[in-house]
């Protein structure tokens, strides 16, 4: 078994190296500026993710949302009844979280809304916002934060964001609407969805823990 596994991995790496050998040097990239401008973007990656291949992105957002459904479905019954105390009560962490949260939110909004112009986009924005929420949760205690962020309404916002994204997909893909406001809208919706999702995952992972 050990030899077989080793042989499989080595053979795979060898084949990949053999294949890669034929790829270089790389041919030049065809020009893309016109196509990008047609979508109202300057960042070609954003034009693809939110425009030409919005269909892939919609499916990907659904993958993400379904993973969240799974997290909720499996972890909710496992959640402990007793509240989980904050990791640390030190005022320093609380202060730091309070001070940092503002810039984090601003940065996330900036990244989401300018993703079609420069590097950025909804996914990193949402992930950054979600991580900021985790920071806050560490300082304040996950349960207290969870009470402040009412989960059922979060869930409604999340599904609403996905439905809106699907509608936006209809506008862009079926009716061929173009314009930078569509891209900003898509990025903000994706960012919202991802941030809520990141928070849900982290919160459920953190609060449904065992005795230690």
């Amino acid at each position, binding site marked *: 078994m050990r030899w077989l596994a080793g042989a499989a*991995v080595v053979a795979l790496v060898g084949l990949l190296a053999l294949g890669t050998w034929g*790829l270089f040097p*790389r041919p030049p990239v065809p020009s893309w500026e016109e196509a990008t401008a047609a979508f109202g973007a300057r960042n070609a*990656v954003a034009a693809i993710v939110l425009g030409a291949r919005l269909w892939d992105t919609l499916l990907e957002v659904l993958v993400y949302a379904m993973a969240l459904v799974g997290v909720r479905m499996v972890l909710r019954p496992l959640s402990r009844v007793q509240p989980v105390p904050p990791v640390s009560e030190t005022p320093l962490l609380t202060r730091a979280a309070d001070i940092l949260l503002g810039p984090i939110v601003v940065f996330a909004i900036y990244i989401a809304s300018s993703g079609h112009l420069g590097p950025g986009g909804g996914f990193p924005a949402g992930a950054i916002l979600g991580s900021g929420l985790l920071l806050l949760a560490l300082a304040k205690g996950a349960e207290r934060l969870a009470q402040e962020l009412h989960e059922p309404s979060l869930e409604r916002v999340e599904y609403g964001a996905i439905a809106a994204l699907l509608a936006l997909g209809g506008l862009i893909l079926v009716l061929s609407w173009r314009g930078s406001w569509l891209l900003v809208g898509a990025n903000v919706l994706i960012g919202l969805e991802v941030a809520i999702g990141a928070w849900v995952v982290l919160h459920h*992972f953190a609060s449904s823990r065992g005795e230690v």
Partner: protein
Amino acid sequence: MEGIAAAALGIALGGSGLWTLVRRRNVIWKLLGLNVAAGGAILFLVAVAHRPGARPAIEGLGSGPAADPLPQALVLTAIVIHFATLALALVYVIFLTEHRHTQDVHKLEREPEEP
């Protein structure tokens, strides 16, 4: 040069991750190995998109030839999909640890007591 180095790194990461996957017995170790392997595959795609001396595919950012934007866009999708799968897998690991009290693949593979 950079492209070849990155492609080689991607392949090496793929190999070491898959090796971890097949050799470790703990499920979380396996997932870590997969994490590294998937990262290698993603890096490989970005390496394919790269051109020597290329600038990012953003209009008005630098001059000269740009990198191919399509694989980069695909990679964004792949990263998120991988994260979602991983989160779900870890949730299942938590569930199994709770119900079967182990993360060892060999122990998990024995039939559970419950029907």
